[in-house]
């Protein structure tokens, strides 16, 4: 009832002690397509659903590499996410330059949270409209953090954000106790399954999801479409095979390769007419 009076300014409290602008920013995050993350003792896997505006366009990049040992997945205003990932990359480079060692994930996440908090206490700014799942590895092990527009951050064993993320969260809640000792491949399978939950009926194919992994001895990188499709196929889930037009060069497996834009162009031609596999 009182919402409309107190929601114009981020620096105005409501009588109930809430900052509505911040909460609206969280809403923006919930509108974005889903992103999930889960971790074991040695690996962290991020996954996201690629939503393209139309058949003609490529999908937005939602997973960013920040450093060899840190990456993130975003949900919400992608532009805000891009700006934050640029900030994080800068921080990692500067820390590495000064200390010749990788920036501990926990430190970066706190810096990020403080940056977000500033936007909740300045009348000329607005909160970032993006939730981030930060996956990283440092001396204290594998970590998954969730940063929200309010400036809060939490560490998770597994989490999902964005639209229809509740379905993924339910799946993860059931399974998370096993994650700590999971193997890397099982973790990836769980990530893909969690993404499938958010699709709710839509067929799962590698063109609509992106998976990234970071782990001990494995720098952060995005898995190429071919690899992801192979894993999907092993599920014995009803899945349509990718068209034969897909070029094999996508399988470079290097950190700087796998430009998802090209992959989405191939995925644009769906319904190749190949028979789906039976469960």
């Amino acid at each position, binding site marked *: 009832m009182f919402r409309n009076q107190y929601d114009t300014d981020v620096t105005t409290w409501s009588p109930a002690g809430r900052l509505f602008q911040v909460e609206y920013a969280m809403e923006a995050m919930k509108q974005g397509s889903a992103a999930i993350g889960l971790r074991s003792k040695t690996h962290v896997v991020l996954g996201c659903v690629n939503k393209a505006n139309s058949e003609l366009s490529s999908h937005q990049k939602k997973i960013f*590499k920040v450093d060899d040992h840190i990456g993130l997945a975003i949900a919400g205003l992608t532009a805000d996410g891009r700006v934050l990932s*640029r900030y994080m*990359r*800068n921080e990692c*480079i*500067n820390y*590495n*330059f000064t200390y010749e060692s990788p920036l501990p994930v926990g430190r970066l996440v706190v810096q990020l949270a403080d940056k977000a908090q500033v936007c909740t206490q300045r009348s000329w700014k607005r909160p970032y409209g993006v939730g981030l799942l930060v996956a990283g590895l440092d001396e204290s092990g594998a970590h998954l953090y969730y940063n929200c527009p309010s400036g809060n951050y939490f560490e998770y064993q597994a989490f999902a954000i964005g639209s229809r993320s509740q379905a993924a969260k339910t799946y993860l809640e059931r399974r998370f106790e096993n994650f700590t000792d999971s193997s890397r491949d099982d973790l990836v399978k769980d990530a893909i399954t969690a993404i499938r939950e958010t699709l709710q009926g839509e067929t799962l194919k590698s063109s609509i999801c992106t998976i990234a992994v970071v782990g001990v001895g494995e720098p952060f990188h995005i898995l190429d479409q071919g690899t992801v499709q192979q894993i999907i196929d092993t599920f014995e889930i009803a899945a349509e095979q990718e068209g034969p037009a897909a070029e094999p060069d996508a399988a470079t497996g290097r950190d*700087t*390769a796998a*430009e998802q834009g090209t992959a989405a162009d191939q995925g644009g031609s769906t319904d190749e007419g190949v028979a789906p596999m039976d469960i």
Partner: protein
Amino acid sequence: MVKQQANWSPYDNNGGSCVAIAGADYCVIAADTRMSTGYNILTREYSKICKLADKCVMASSGFQADVKALQKQLAARHLIYQHQHNKQMSCPAMAQLLSNTLYYKRFFPYYSFNVLGGLDNEGKGCVFTYDAVGSYEKVGYSSQGSGSTLITPFLDNQLKSPSPLLLPVQDAVTPLVEAEAIDLVKTVFASASERDIYTGDKIEIVVVNATGIRREYMELRKD
């Protein structure tokens, strides 16, 4: 009343020599591994060569503290480039970046005499040679450092790179094969270490070609 001179210098010269030779499909970059100060040797096993990108290697002699700072700067800038462009920097791009980075400190220069070597976008060998403030040029071969006055005339005699001012424009790369170029480098350093007190101990030779980057060493005079 004589003008007061500085009694402390921010610079020191750690000596050493660097050489680079560009071939049709390879590039050889070499430097000795001796680090000195004054008439003393600080260490016999210091690398003056730094890999900046997949196909781009830099050798620098001069003040090694400045060299190290320069290398770190370039590495950080390269990382930013990779984040933004999703690929490695090409050798010519890195060459320009190095020039700009050096000129940025025009009024408190990096005391670093660099040669940059690698493969360009077409896979041809290229060598870029610099002065301390960033003036650079693409050449077929180059030498910098304390032994350069002894090495350059010999390379001129063996390789005789055509002037880029003459027409028709001739290729700067040497017709030598990779193995011959490496041999030439070894000969050249062996000669330089005879007369230059700051060059010696060991040569580190880095070869960049289509298959990647490889490294080899050769012993030199220890005196």
